């Protein structure tokens, strides 16, 4: 059962790539339907796990990645259905599959330690994950912007030129995704800080490790800094277009490293 969303995501990714390459609208609709099915199956899975465990399955990096995949799928579907623009799907769905494979390696629901029994924990995790989902979309938009930009600049109008929306649209959507992501990340960091201060007296060693010395917290603040700079650069220095696109793609690499690599191997405060 826990593999069903992954299988549907993989099928959707294949269909999105096929649609991107051959632009058959039937394949496009199939891709959307498969992704919708994947998100729905994923919703059921998360719902069942919540009922079984008595709390939302957000404990541990695998569970967080799984929830992130679910949120990203959901936000992408929302954007696709409201903008009627399917070309990003090929990039987003591939990212979904890659991350869901990692999550599927450890499908068990980790019991919630006493430390995490707080609504603040849920708000913290959900806001950060929403922020990451927005940043993931911004990254995809940035990458596609650069691809299209290079084609137009090189006067070689081909593959991406016929498939992607205009540079302007990509840039505006990128700006929105960064703004939304930054708001949620800020919220997540603040709530995380309040919660960490509250649990300082806890005997749990992880509560003691909640400090800037912990790589997960440090890198999260670094990425908050990068995205704050991206916003500032766009609004004040006028870095839009190609520079903003590069920045949002690079910044997401930092987020991804923190989320997956640091989350699994390096952190001492967030290893639930």
């Amino acid at each position, binding site marked *: 059962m826990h593999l069903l969303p992954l299988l549907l995501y993989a099928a959707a990714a294949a269909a999105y790539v096929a649609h991107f390459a051959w*632009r*058959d*609208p039937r394949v496009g609709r199939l891709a959307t339907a498969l992704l919708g099915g994947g998100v729905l199956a994923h919703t059921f899975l998360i719902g069942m796990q919540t009922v079984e465990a008595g709390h939302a399955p957000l404990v541990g990096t695998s569970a967080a990645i799984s929830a992130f995949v679910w949120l990203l799928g959901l936000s992408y579907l929302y954007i696709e259905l409201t903008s009627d623009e399917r070309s990003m799907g090929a990039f987003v769905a591939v990212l979904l599959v890659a991350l869901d494979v990692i999550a599927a390696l450890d499908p068990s629901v980790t019991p919630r330690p006493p430390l995490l029994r707080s609504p603040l924990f849920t708000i913290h995790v959900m806001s950060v994950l929403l922020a990451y989902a927005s940043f993931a979309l911004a990254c995809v938009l940035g990458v596609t912007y650069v691809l*299209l930009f290079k084609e*137009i*600049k090189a*006067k070689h*109008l081909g593959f991406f*030129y*016929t498939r992607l*929306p*205009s*540079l*302007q*649209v990509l840039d505006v959507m990128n700006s929105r995704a960064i703004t939304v992501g930054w708001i949620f990340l800020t919220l997540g960091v603040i709530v995380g800080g309040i919660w960490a201060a509250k649990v300082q007296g806890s005997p749990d060693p992880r509560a003691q490790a909640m400090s800037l010395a912990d790589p997960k917290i440090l890198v999260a603040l670094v990425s908050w800094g990068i995205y704050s700079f991206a916003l500032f650069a766009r609004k004040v*220095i*006028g*870095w*839009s*277009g*190609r*520079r*903003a696109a590069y920045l949002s793609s690079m910044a997401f690499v930092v987020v991804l490293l923190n989320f997956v690599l640091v989350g699994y191997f390096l952190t001492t405060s967030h290893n639930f």
Partner: protein
Amino acid sequence: MRLFAVGLSHRTAPVELRERVDFARGGVETALAALASRGVGRELVVLSTCNRAEIYAVGDTDTTADGVGQFFSEYHHIAHTQITEHLYVHRGADAARHLFRVAAGLDSLVVGEPQILGQVKAAYGVASDGQFTAALTNRLFHSAFTVGKRVRAETGLGEGAVSVSYAAIALAKKIFGDLKGRGVLILGAGEMAKLTGIHLQSQHVKQITIASRTLLAAQNLASRLGGVAVSWDGFDAALAAADIVVTASGASEPILSRARVEDAMRPRRSRPLFIIDIAVPRDVETAAGDLDQVFLYNIDDLRTIVQENLARRGAELARAEAIVDEEVARFTAWMQSREIVPTVVALRQRFETIRRAELERLEPKLASLPPEARTRVDEVTRLIVEKLLLTPTEQLKSVSDEAMIVAYADALNRLFSLAQDTEKAKGGVASEEESEVSS
């Protein structure tokens, strides 16, 4: 019932003749009514565009086609001899194929142009509103709309600009999205500048600014395009404000150096600038195109894009033709089932009637037989009839050529005098065709 397409197009007739047979001028409804009053054809659709005049008609014999041909000359008061060599006549499946190719833009002057599908829809709409259409033309035109939609959705036939101006506008849209609210600066006031300006104006750009060596020429063009003229030495502010710059000055030295463009870019920050240099010799230094967020295209770049688009359209032709083939096959199968199924049904009914009649005639002799034997006789006679009809039925079902269908149906009608039965079978065909034909 046969389908005919009679007409002329840019492929067969010169523009002088096409102008004279324009049905749209006097109103397509009037033409349809005039044609219907002659009793030519039962179902009628008139398709009249600047590149073609065609009449789709359903009739029983080739006289329908002749009648429509006559109508072309008499309605427009043109000598029949003058028009007849330019007219083409397509029958049955060929007529369907012709319409499907027209709807897909395959028969257009600019292959893949999208307007024709709308024109076909409008032509059908007029005929349908006037109740000149019925089952056959309804099905035919709806299939044509399907072909048009499928070709547009499944192939790249209509994609890519095939003229330099459209290529430039398509590029601008790929950079800026909607061109509404964008500013345009045109350097030069010659013919090329004017043409490009008109194209841009049709995109509802926010403002067009024109600079030319002679201020008067700039002012003239500005009033023509609803823009403003600025002096030749003072266009730098307009350059910094513009999103799209068209250069067509005819100067012998570049007027936009890299440094000048760089200066204009500074206050714009990252706002892109699209420079279209259609002047020969070129007006913009090539190095200006290396600046970040500057997209510089000269006339040769645009021509190359047009060439590539044309080549790509050529590659998509085969895919579009395959879609036409598929839909023609589907339409023919439908048409064929309409034509041949009643004949098959009538033929089988005729055989069955004969069998029953013979059994009844033999009834006194068979009465003495035991019931099992009588059942056996009934079964054997039925099997003989089945066996006799098996091959002809299969053969009839495999006929795909519409003319052959008519010929076969006609022959069978005569040989077995089925005429009345066929008419009767047509009424009940909907319920019987499945069981009768598939047996």
